């Protein structure tokens, strides 16, 4: 079986189309320019194998390359550093052939660098590690020659290819030369760049952000983009108002696309800013700790689900800028059942279910993320509903580093916790498989939810290559999870990417959130 044996022609075509659209209205531009992106969270490390979140995706996709890459919306997977990939019939062996590419220090990108990179991820046990754990064994990736890298999986995986973009290739020689006390170069790589990506790191300060210049020798070349950017800067600007004002003044050229709707309106009204609206894949929901009383009682979970004012939240607080999504999968992803009704704000039903609860009802703790007003507003709204049916609750608002630590601890996890689940790879497993598979409990399943029927569907879908079967399984799992009220599922996001009016060629993808800067140019 052979897949993806074309060169990235599709990618080029898409880029050309985007460019043409931009060029049609743009006057002849002066070359280059500097793009300043105001980033809401700080880059505390640049090591591409240490972090795996969407808030800090830009360092990974701009400084580094992977064998494959996700593009556009809806996202499609294309060969990137790889020229082609051969998959064996048993679905266990993936053979990638590399293109001619150079690292930023001029040395060639070789198959051994790829093998080193995946082994480094597996040994560091950080970032995207959980994607490969149990599927790729340490040392199992071989480089028979400089251009060929062979992955031999321990068990079949339907999602392996989708996760390959997270194997960011680092320069083995350079990283090894900067190792200290067998730390795999983590200390050095957190502040330096050993990549082959479109941009080369020039400055980094964890408190300020990072800057990079265009890498002329990048394998993809620059002929696709007229007047590509010379310099990019990702600057940490925590305060929303500073980001918005900076964008309106023209000091910043872009910021994240998930601002509060009130600010989006303000930006859209500014003549300096253009807001690009895209359907995204980022669900907002509340994790429920299914393993702890009284939430281990399905009737209590249903009472919670009926006590949240979905319409008030979506239509009023978010001004209708998002779409109701009653299941734990974005409704624009395949595998999401189309006809599910979901829960509504119905206090009578909530009371009925509460009356059936066998566990002792106690005061519950509602978790929210400090600095993310939306999670606090959602928690307050749920508290409002719970008050009316007689469930006591208190809200705890903590920063993301604190909350993400507690999420992994069965004792410390909040009763419910409101947050988002973004796209790391466009496959239903990114949501359902990680959030509700039994084997992910404590790692990415923070609900302590383990239902045999759901788990069987999910693990079959994870290993099967039969698309129809996978789709059917995910649809069924969605229904079961909704029926079980495993979480409070609220909405799927739209992305409102604000950019300076002179910015052209932004390519939005739910995985990179439009932050891959190699396609961008400025008038």
């Amino acid at each position, binding site marked *: 079986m052979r897949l993806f044996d074309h060169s990235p022609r599709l990618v080029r075509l898409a880029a050309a189309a985007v460019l043409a659209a931009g060029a049609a209205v743009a006057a002849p531009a002066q070359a280059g320019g500097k793009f300043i992106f105001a980033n809401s969270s700080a880059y505390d490390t640049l090591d591409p194998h240490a972090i795996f979140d969407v808030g800090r995706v830009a360092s990974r996709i701009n400084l580094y390359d992977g064998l494959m890459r996700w593009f556009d919306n809806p996202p499609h997977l294309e060969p990137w550093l790889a020229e082609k990939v051969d998959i064996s019939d048993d679905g266990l062996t993936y053979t990638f052939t590399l293109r001619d590419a150079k690292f930023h220090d001029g040395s060639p990108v070789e198959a051994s660098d790829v093998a080193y990179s995946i082994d480094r991820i597996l040994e560091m046990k950080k970032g995207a590690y959980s994607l490969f754990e149990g599927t790729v064994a340490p040392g199992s990736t071989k480089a028979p020659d400089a251009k060929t890298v062979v992955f031999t999986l321990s068990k079949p995986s339907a999602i392996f290819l989708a996760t390959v973009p997270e194997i960011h290739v680092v320069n083995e020689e350079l990283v090894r030369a900067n190792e200290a006390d067998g730390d795999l170069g983590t200390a050095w790589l957190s502040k330096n760049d050993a990549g082959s990506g479109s941009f080369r790191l020039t400055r980094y300060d964890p408190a300020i952000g990072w800057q990079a210049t265009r890498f002329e020798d990048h394998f993809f070349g620059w002929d696709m983009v007229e007047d590509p950017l010379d310099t990019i800067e990702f600057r940490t600007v925590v*305060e*929303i*108002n500073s980001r918005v004002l900076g964008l309106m003044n023209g000091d910043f050229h872009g910021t994240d696309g998930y601002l*509060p709707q*009130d*600010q989006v309106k*303000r930006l859209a009204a500014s003549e300096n800013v253009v807001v690009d609206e895209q359907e995204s894949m980022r669900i907002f929901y509340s994790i429920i700790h299914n393993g702890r009383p009284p939430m281990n009682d399905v009737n209590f979970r249903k009472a919670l689900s009926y006590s949240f*004012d979905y319409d*008030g*939240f979506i*239509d*009023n*607080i978010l001004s209708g800028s998002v779409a109701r999504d009653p299941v734990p999968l974005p409704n624009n992803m395949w595998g999401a059942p189309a006809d599910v009704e979901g829960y509504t704000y119905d206090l009578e039903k909530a009371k009925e279910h509460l009356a059936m609860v066998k566990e002792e009802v106690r005061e519950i703790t509602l978790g*929210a993320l*400090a*600095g993310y*007003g939306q999670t*606090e*507003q959602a*928690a*307050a*709204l749920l*508290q*409002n509903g719970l*008050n009316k049916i007689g469930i006591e609750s*208190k*809200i*705890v*608002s*903590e*920063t993301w580093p604190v909350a993400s630590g507690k999420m992994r601890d069965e004792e410390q996890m909040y009763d419910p916790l409101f947050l988002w689940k973004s796209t790391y790879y466009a496959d239903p497993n990114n949501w359902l498989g990680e959030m509700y598979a039994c084997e992910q409990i404590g790692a990415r399943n923070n609900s302590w939810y383990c239902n045999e029927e759901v788990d069987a569907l999910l693990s079959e879908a994870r290993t099967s290559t039969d698309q129809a079967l996978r789709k059917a399984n995910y649809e069924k799992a969605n229904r079961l999870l909704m029926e079980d009220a495993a979480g409070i599922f609220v909405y799927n996001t739209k992305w409102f990417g604000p950019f300076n009016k002179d910015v052209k060629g932004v390519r939005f993808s739910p995985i990179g959130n439009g932050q891959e800067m190699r396609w961008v140019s400025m008038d």
Partner: protein
Amino acid sequence: MATFRFLLRKLAADRTAALGALIVVLLVAVAIAAPVLSTHPEDVTEFHPPERLLGPSGDHYFGTDRMGSDVYSRILFGARITISIAVIAIGVSVLIGVPVGLVAGYYRNWASDALMRVSDIFLAVPQIVLAIAIAQTLGPSIENVILALSATYWPFWARLVYAETRSALNETYVEASIALGASPWRVMLLHVLPNISSSLIVRTTIGMGGTILTAAVLGFLGLGPPAPSPEWGRTIAESREFLPEAWWYATAPGLAIFLVVMGFNLLGDGLRDILDPRTRRSTDG
């Protein structure tokens, strides 16, 4: 009673101090009568999303907030939180600081040195930084804000009482009572303490203003009582997202903090003028 009447008369004569006293009395009255004075008392815990971010009107004097609750009513209930934080935190600081200062000031031995060095250590760290560190470590709640403020404020009282005690010990009335065989505790409590009480009262009044400000800062940073508490600092933090459009949302709690802190400071300054003959103004006659 005579002293109290003297105080009242002096306060009434000093217009700025009288204004300060009026604000403080009003604040306490508002905090006590919040359920009666507020137009939407249920809005402390109840939300109406369709009515969010409405401008000031006859129904909502200071508009509504991000959850559609009445800002005016929430400010009134916020006064309760602010007052209880300030009163308890200052009370604890006084209870720790005054005995420490008295003992360290009265005795001249290694123990008194040790006590003062400990308070020096607390004073060496910027107060707000220490309070943030403590509140962050213990987690956001009213109790922890009180704890953080008390832990950082007591050295100010210890220092003050220590210095005043040292100078009081040179006074003849103290020497006389010691010569008559009074016990150290008797001297400290019956002779020293009453005579340094005026500076203590002034310090405490002005300290209230500072404490309220620090408590608001902690609330602003998310270290105070969690949502949906109507604490003033937290309300300002919440409102930032909606500036400048929803100007009333940040302005109302900001004004409340400003007024209250100014009230305590004016009152404190006025009391100092009245209680300390050295700084008493010539206009007082």
